C-alpha cells in the first residue's frame, strides 16, 4: 500500500517533469487531428449552406443542399465533438491519473477504429446520395442500410472509449484507496456515463431500422423511432456541453491565476447532469401528435430541471473570476473584471463561450415551454439557438482548450504570434456567430423554416421579406468559415511547427480552506440507479403508449 502510494507520487512527479508519455500523447494527437480535419470539412459545407440560403449561391446539380446539410450535421455535431471529447478526456485522464493503463490505450485505439469505420460508412452513403436524411434520419425516410450500420459502429466506438476511461479510473482507485478521483477524471467518467446512457435509445432504434432498411421487415413505428432518437440527440449535445464545462471548472481557474471554486459543487454538477438529462429529449417533440398534453407538460418540468446544474455553474464561474481578480488587487464591485487576462486566448475563447451561454441558455429555457416552442419549432430560430450552444459555447471552449492541450501533447509552446492569431480567431468566431445566429433567430421568429434550401415559394411576399436577414446569415457564415480555416491552421501549427518546449496541463488547485469532498460523490452505482429512475419516469408512460396504441407501421420512402 505504502509503496503503491509512493510509486504513484513518483509517477506523478516524473509525469510533470517529463510531460505526457509518447504513447498517451499519440492517442490524443490522432483523435484531435481528425476532429479538426472534420471541422474543416464540415465548416466548408456550412459556408456553402450559408451562401445558398442567402440566395448568393446556386448549388450544382451534383451537390444537393440536403446532402451537404446531412453531412454538416453529422460531421460537426456527432463526429467532431465525439473525437474531440475522446482526445481531450484521454489526455486529461492520462495527466491526472499518472498515465493511461495499457488496457485503456487499447480501448482508445479500438474505439477510434470503430468510430472511423462508422464515419466512413455513413459519409460514403451520404456522398453516394443514399442517405440524405439529416443527422436525425426520421423514418419513414429510408436510407441505405449501411448508413444505419455505420451508426452502430459509432455507438460501439462511444462505448469502447467510455469503457477505457472507466477501467482506467477503477484501476487508479484500486491503487489509491481512500483517495478521491481527481476532478478532471471525475468529469470524464460522468461524461462517458451520460453519453452511454443516451446512446441506448439510438441503438435500440437503429436495430429496428436495419432489418427494415434491408427489406426484412416491412414497416416501422415512426413515433417510437423518433422518440428513441431524441433520447440520444438531446443527451449528446448536453454531453458536449459537459465536456466544455469540465474545462471551465478545471482549467480556467488555473489559467487566470485563481483556485477551484468548490470541488464538491463541480462534482454535484456532474452528478446532476448525469441523473437529470436524458428525458430532455422530449422537448424536441412538443408539437408532435401522439403524445398527450399532460405528458408534454410533465416534460416541461423534466427539461427545466436540466437548467439547475447550469445555474450552479454560472454562479461558480463568476465567483472564481471575482476571487482571482481580488487576489490581483481589484477593488470595487466590478474591478475584478478588468483584471481578467483578456489578451490571453486560453482565457478569452472559453470566456466568450461562457458569456454566450447566458442568452443561449435563456433561449433554451424559453423554447422548452410548450406554447413558446410552438412559435419557433423547426424555424431557423432553432438553428440559431444551437449554433450558440454547440457552435459557440461548446466549439469555442474546445478551441480554447486546443491552445494549451495541443502544445502540451506535442511538447511545444504557443508563441505570442499564435496567441494573437488565436485572439483574431476568437473575435471572428464571435462576430460571425453574432451575425449568423442573430439573423437566424430573427428570421426564424418571422417564420423562415430550417432545413430548407433557398426558396421564395414562388415569389411569395412573406418569403421575400426574409431575404435581407438571410443575407446577414450568409455574411456571418463567411466570417465563420474564415474562423474555421484560421483555427485549423493554428491547431496544426501547434502540433507540428511551434517551437519545442514545455506546456503545462492547467489543473486548478483547491483553496487552502476548502471543505473536504464527501465520499458519497463517488457512489456511481447510486447515480446510475437514480438516472434510470428518472429515465423511467420520463419514458415509460409515453413509450408504452406509442407501442400499445401504435398505428399500422410505415413502409420506407426515398424522397430525395
Amino acid at each position, binding site marked *: 500500500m505504502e509503496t503503491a502510494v509512493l510509486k504513484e507520487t513518483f509517477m506523478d512527479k516524473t509525469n510533470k517533469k517529463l510531460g505526457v508519455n509518447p504513447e498517451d500523447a499519440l492517442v490524443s494527437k490522432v483523435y484531435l487531428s481528425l476532429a479538426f480535419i472534420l471541422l474543416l470539412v464540415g465548416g466548408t459545407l456550412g459556408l456553402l449552406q450559408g451562401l445558398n440560403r442567402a440566395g448568393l449561391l446556386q448549388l450544382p446539380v451534383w451537390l444537393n443542399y440536403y446532402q451537404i446539410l446531412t453531412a454538416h450535421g453529422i460531421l460537426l455535431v456527432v463526429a467532431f465533438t465525439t473525437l474531440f471529447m475522446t482526445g481531450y478526456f484521454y489526455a486529461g485522464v492520462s495527466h491526472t491519473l499518472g498515465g493511461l493503463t495499457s488496457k485503456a490505450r487499447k480501448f482508445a485505439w479500438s474505439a477510434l477504429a470503430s468510430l472511423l469505420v462508422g464515419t466512413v460508412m455513413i459519409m460514403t452513403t451520404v456522398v453516394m446520395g443514399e442517405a440524405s436524411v439529416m443527422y436525425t434520419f*426520421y423514418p419513414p425516410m429510408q436510407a441505405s442500410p449501411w448508413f444505419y450500420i455505420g451508426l452502430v459502429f459509432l455507438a460501439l466506438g462511444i462505448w469502447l472509449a467510455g469503457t477505457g476511461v472507466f477501467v482506467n479510473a477503477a484501476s487508479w482507485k484500486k491503487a489509491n484507496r481512500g483517495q478521491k478521483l481527481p476532478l478532471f477524471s471525475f468529469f470524464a467518467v460522468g461524461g462517458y456515463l451520460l453519453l452511454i446512457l443516451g446512446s441506448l435509445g439510438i441503438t435500440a432504434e437503429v436495430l429496428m431500422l436495419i432489418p427494415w432498411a434491408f427489406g426484412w421487415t416491412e414497416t416501422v413505428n415512426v413515433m417510437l423511432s423518433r422518440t428513441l432518437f431524441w433520447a440520444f440527440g438531446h443527451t449528446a449535445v448536453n454531453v458536449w456541453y459537459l465536456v466544455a464545462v469540465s474545462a471551465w471548472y478545471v482549467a480556467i481557474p488555473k489559467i487566470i491565476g485563481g483556485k477551484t471554486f468548490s470541488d464538491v459543487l463541480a462534482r454535484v454538477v456532474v452528478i446532476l447532469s448525469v441523473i437529470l438529462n436524458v428525458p430532455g429529449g422530449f422537448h424536441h417533440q412538443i408539437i*408532435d*401528435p*401522439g403524445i398527450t398534453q399532460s405528458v408534454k407538460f410533465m416534460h416541461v418540468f423534466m427539461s427545466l430541471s436540466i*437548467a439547475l446544474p447550469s445555474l450552479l455553474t454560472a454562479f461558480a464561474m463568476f465567483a472564481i473570476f471575482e476571487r482571482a481578480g481580488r487576489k490581483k488587487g481589484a477593488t470595487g464591485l466590478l474591478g475584478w473584471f478588468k483584471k481578467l487576462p483578456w489578451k490571453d486566448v486560453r482565457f478569452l475563447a472559453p470566456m466568450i463561450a461562457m458569456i454566450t451561454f447566458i442568452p443561449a441558455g435563456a433561449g433554451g429555457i424559453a423554447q422548452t*415551454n410548450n406554447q413558446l416552442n410552438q412559435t419557433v*419549432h423547426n424555424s431557423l430560430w432553432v438553428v440559431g439557438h444551437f449554433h450558440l450552444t454547440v457552435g459557440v459555447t461548446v466549439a469555442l471552449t474546445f478551441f480554447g482548450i486546443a491552445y494549451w492541450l495541443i502544445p502540451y501533447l506535442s511538447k511545444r509552446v504557443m508563441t505570442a504570434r499564435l496567441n494573437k492569431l488565436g485572439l483574431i480567431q476568437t473575435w471572428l468566431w464571435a462576430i460571425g456567430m453574432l451575425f449568423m445566429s442573430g439573423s437566424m433567430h430573427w428570421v426564424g421568429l418571422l417564420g423562415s423554416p430550417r432545413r*430548407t434550401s433557398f426558396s421564395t415559394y414562388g415569389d411569395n411576399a412573406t418569403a421575400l421579406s426574409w431575404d435581407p436577414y438571410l443575407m446577414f446569415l450568409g455574411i456571418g457564415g463567411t466570417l465563420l468559415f474564415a474562423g474555421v480555416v484560421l483555427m485549423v491552421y493554428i491547431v496544426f501549427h501547434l502540433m507540428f511547427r511551434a517551437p519545442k518546449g514545455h506546456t503545462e496541463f492547467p489543473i486548478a488547485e483547491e483553496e487552502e480552506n476548502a471543505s473536504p469532498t464527501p465520499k458519497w460523490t463517488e457512489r456511481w452505482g447510486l447515480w446510475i440507479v437514480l438516472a434510470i429512475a428518472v429515465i423511467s419516469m420520463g419514458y415509460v408512460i409515453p413509450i408504452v403508449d406509442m407501442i400499445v396504441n401504435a398505428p399500422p407501421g*410505415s413502409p420506407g420512402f426515398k424522397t430525395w
Partner: protein
Amino acid sequence: MKMHRAEEIWLIISVSVLVLSMVVTGYQTFAQGMGPPSNMETIDPQKVDEHELFSEPGVYKTGENQYEVVMTLQIFSFTPGDIEIPAGAEVTFTMTSKDVVHGFQIAGTNVNAMVMPGHIQKITETFDEPGEYLILCNEYCGAGHQAMATTITVK
C-alpha cells in the same frame, strides 16, 4: 456542501423564474386550452385514401363562421391548397401524412404542428386579419421540400 448567501439568493431567484414559467405554461395549457397540438387519433398510413375523413380532403363549414380543413400532406404538396376563408373564421386543420414526416406552419401565426404518417394531427386558429398567409412545410421531407407550400387567403 455549504452555500454562500449570494449563491442562495441567485438560486432562489432563478429557480423562481423557472417555476413561474411552468405555471404560466400550465395555466395556458389546461385552463385556456392553448396547449400544443397533441391529437391522439391514429390512421393506417397506407390507407389514407380509404379513410372516412381523408378520402375527401377539403374545406368544410362546421358552424357559424367555423370551418374544418381536412388536409393530406404528401411530397411535396398540401391537399387542398389555395384555401379561402372569411375574416374572423375559426378554422380547425385536421391533417395526416401519406408518406414521410411533414411540418405544417402558417407564417405570421402560431400555427405550427408536426404531421406524421399514422397519426391524425389537429390545430385550430382564428383568422381575424384579412390577407394572404403563406403555408409551408417546415420539416425536411425530401428533394422538393423547399417547394412545399401553399396559401390561405382570409377575406
